[in-house]
């Protein structure tokens, strides 16, 4: 994402830094993959619906081709011991990358200590109790937003 920011703001000058921050805020807030959302917004800003569609296609085409290729290779050779060994190594790193991202995001929560309880609750519900995301989200999001309003964003 930091790479996307420097390309869009600094090199191509499609958006000012402030516009980027505002749009990115929206894209983070709305459901859906952030960078996919961002490409829809930027495409839409320049060319309307067709711009959004083309921008989306441009973003996803190459990764999808690579994914299908690697997926096919995995299907064909995934059972070989050497490939399994390599994938185990990469998966261990991938797990670390995701945990580190979560911890980095968690640092923001130190500003709002009461909200940490919602992180723990959703982690517990989906990872240990295996509850489906939708009802968990519908139950926790209003509560979390209410606590944010009551204690951190100037009264409900």
């Amino acid at each position, binding site marked *: 994402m930091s790479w996307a920011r420097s390309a869009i703001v600094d090199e191509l000058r499609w958006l000012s830094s402030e516009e980027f921050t505002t749009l990115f805020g929206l894209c983070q807030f709305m459901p859906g993959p952030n960078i996919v959302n961002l490409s829809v917004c930027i495409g839409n800003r320049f060319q309307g619906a067709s711009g959004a569609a083309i921008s989306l296609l441009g973003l996803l085409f190459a990764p*999808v081709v690579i*994914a299908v290729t690697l997926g096919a290779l995995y299907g064909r050779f995934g059972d070989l011991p050497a490939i399994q060994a390599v994938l185990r190594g990469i998966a*261990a790193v991938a797990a670390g990358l995701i945990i580190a991202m979560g911890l980095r995001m968690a640092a923001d929560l130190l500003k709002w200590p009461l909200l940490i309880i919602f992180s723990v609750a959703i982690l517990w519900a989906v990872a240990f109790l295996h509850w489906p995301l939708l009802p968990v989200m519908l139950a926790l999001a209003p509560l979390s937003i209410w606590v*944010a309003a009551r204690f951190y964003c100037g009264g409900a």
Partner: protein
Amino acid sequence: MKEITEILLEFGALSLVAFGGAGTVLPELHRIAVETHHWMSDATFSYLVAISQAIPGPNVIIVTLIGWHTAGLAGALAATVAMCAPSSLLIFILMHFWEKIRGTRWRLTIQTGIVPLAVGLVLASGFIVTRGADKSLGAFAITAATVLIVLYGKLNPLWLIGIGAIFGLAGLV
């Protein structure tokens, strides 16, 4: 055909609750693919996540891999479209409205309230991938070292993935 329908319905619905991006939906993808529909094993799920992390581009590409593994090319395309189209349509419609309510207090409040849920979901994702992938002491050590290097170092993640692959090949994981 049954799988394609399942992919379209499950991922299409997931698209609209994927607050915080693709990283936050891994637990739900795991529940759908491994626990509900038995499309793959726990380990395969972790390997597909690993492959998706190594592919440059958006990490939503994990759904493409799940779709491919489940139902071939049609599955890959169905999964990608189902995961991207509903949320894209929503943001396309709401973009102008959002710019209008800029800086208002309730927008800030909603944004703040969503953060802890996204954090919890990303950590749950990390936990689930660890549970599926790390079966040895060496694997746990690599995961822990990766966390520390990302938090305190400056190495590009692609290097870490390369190093992980070499460690794996050397039989250390």
